[in-house]
């Protein structure tokens, strides 16, 4: 081989978490979404909107926190439309999600140009720097990897634990799961499917927005039209791969992050190898993910089916 395996391995480990984060954030949100029975394909568009809004807010105010919050807010706004269409108007969720995707896709590009004009080189901002947990981060290998990440990562771990607890150890979590399995039953038992579905969708939107913000504020530092490049859909695939269980989705995201970094690393190490084939790698991997899960997936029974009270 023409390169050092050790180098590759260490850069994979180092880079895997940041690269996994956008998909992980969006996937965790979509996980809740789908457990409640709503399929949201507009994640891609919401991530783009989150990215541009976070970028703009950070650019103007210099505050990363505001950027993230604004991104989450935009995500909520967009997912609100999806919720109205899917839950209240009982329209086809695939079509609604696709429409949101398109809107987010176009609008984000427009906003960028509106703010900066047609630039040839991207406008940059400072990315969020990682934080080191004292002492622990000095452990060899593992130290920097696990304990030297951006604070968002730690928050996300807490969030995932929270989601896990919510779903399986609280009553509202049980209710949400019921709504996703059979909204009629939920309704009969006094659980309001509309409220729960709205909540789930809005949460999913918030997370998608944050995921997009992570891309601009932490990884790249600028905005580009095709930043997300399908990551939103990878997130949907990750939920499937994780069989709707938060920690499994987390593992899947890490694997995806590792694969992504691998492609980037190999790209720089093998300049003569046509880079496009490497670029394909994450997408082939995603295909692989869902093939692996295949028929063993047991989705919430009422996924993507609108609930009509009159039935």
């Amino acid at each position: 081989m023409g390169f050092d395996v050790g180098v590759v391995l260490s850069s994979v480990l180092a880079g895997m978490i940041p690269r996994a984060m956008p998909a992980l954030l969006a996937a965790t949100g979509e996980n809740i979404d789908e457990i409640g029975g709503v399929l949201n394909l507009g994640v891609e568009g919401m991530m783009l909107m989150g990215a541009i809004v976070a970028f703009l807010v950070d650019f103007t105010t210099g505050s990363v926190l505001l950027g993230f919050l604004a991104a989450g807010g935009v995500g909520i706004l967009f997912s609100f439309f999806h919720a109205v269409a899917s839950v209240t108007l009982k329209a086809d969720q695939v079509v609604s999600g696709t429409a949101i995707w398109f809107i987010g896709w176009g609008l984000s590009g427009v906003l960028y140009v509106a703010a900066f004009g047609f630039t040839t080189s991207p406008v940059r901002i400072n990315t969020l720097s990682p934080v080191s947990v004292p002492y622990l981060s000095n452990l060899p290998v593992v130290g920097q990897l696990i304990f030297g990440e951006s604070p968002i990562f730690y928050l996300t771990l807490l969030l995932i634990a929270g989601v896990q607890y919510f779903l399986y150890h609280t009553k509202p979590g049980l209710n949400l799961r019921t709504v996703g399995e059979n909204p009629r039953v939920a309704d009969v038992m006094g659980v309001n499917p509309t409220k729960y579905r709205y909540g789930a969708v809005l949460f999913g939107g918030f997370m998608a927005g944050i995921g997009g913000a992570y891309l601009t504020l932490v990884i790249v530092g600028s905005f580009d039209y095709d930043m997300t490049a399908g990551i939103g859909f990878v997130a949907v695939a990750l939920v499937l791969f994780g069989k709707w269980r938060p920690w499994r989705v987390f593992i899947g995201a890490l694997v995806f992050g590792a694969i992504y970094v691998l492609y980037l690393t190999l790209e720089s190490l093998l300049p003569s190898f046509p880079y496009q084939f490497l670029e394909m790698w994450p997408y082939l991997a995603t295909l692989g993910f869902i093939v692996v899960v295949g028929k063993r997936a047991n989705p919430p029974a009422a996924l993507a089916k609108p609930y009509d009270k009159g039935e």
Partner: protein
Amino acid sequence: MIVLFKVPPLSGIASLFTTGFGGYQQLAETLVISTPLLIMAVGLSVPFSAKFWNIGGQGQYILGSLVSTWVGLQLAGSLPPFLVIIVAIIVGFAAGAVWAIPPTLMKLYLGTSEIITTLMMNFIAVFLLNYLVLGPMEGSAAKAFHVPSSAPLPPSDMLPGILPGTSLSLALVIALLLAGFMYVILNRTRFGYEIRLIGQSPDAARYAGVRINRNILAAMAVSGGLAGVAGMAQVFGSTGVLLPQVFSDITTSFGYVGIPVALIASLNPISTIISSIFFGGILNGAYGMELVYGVPVDVVIAIYGLIMLFALLGLSVNLRGLLGGLRRRFK
């Protein structure tokens, strides 16, 4: 968003339409854009009627344009032009169909979501295209001038124009014929019946002896194939060269735009003619908006999305559900 650019909204929308439709020249331009859209959307109406969501139109389109151009370049000069064109159509169809098959098989036999698999194929197709166009297929002129593209097709091998003074080509005629043909297939043949039945009720279809797998495979092959033909038509009818793609470039994303075009037309191939002209006109108009007001062309995909959303809402609002809910609340 129009407001963002300090454009008075009304005149902004108005200019959208005048650029798209006003005047003879503009209309022809619109039709040029609409042609591949029409072919694409007509193809999509088949799997969509079976509720099989083919989001991979873009990848199928790319493969079609790729392979047909390659073949066209190989055959240039050794065969009479009209033969080259016919071969290109066949090859374009085949390439698109082949690209559509793997995700279909995955769904039918492994149960994986066709939305995600077809979408992933799109990304892979883009990379494949870019690799080839920037590498083995790069045209010599392109290399010299650092403008990425493939070698151009000899003008004689392209689809002949049909209206002098415009860039309308035979592709439009092909598209219209295809639309009519698919209409008959969907509504008057056994295959079309079975496809529609699968979409309406897969259970009833099984109980009626319909072979779901075979039908869906055929539907996807047709859809992929037509997408491929759309790709071929774009190269052989307008551009003449193969260009590399960037994901977010709406002006080449016929595969994605085809989705709302087909849906808005309620999957009826004849209505798709109107729908594709409408969408094409808006895109054309968006070009104009960019020139005049500086609004980037990408606004158009947002507009498409909004159109989809409003159409969706419009359809749903007519349901008794909303009215019933209102009545109940105000009792």
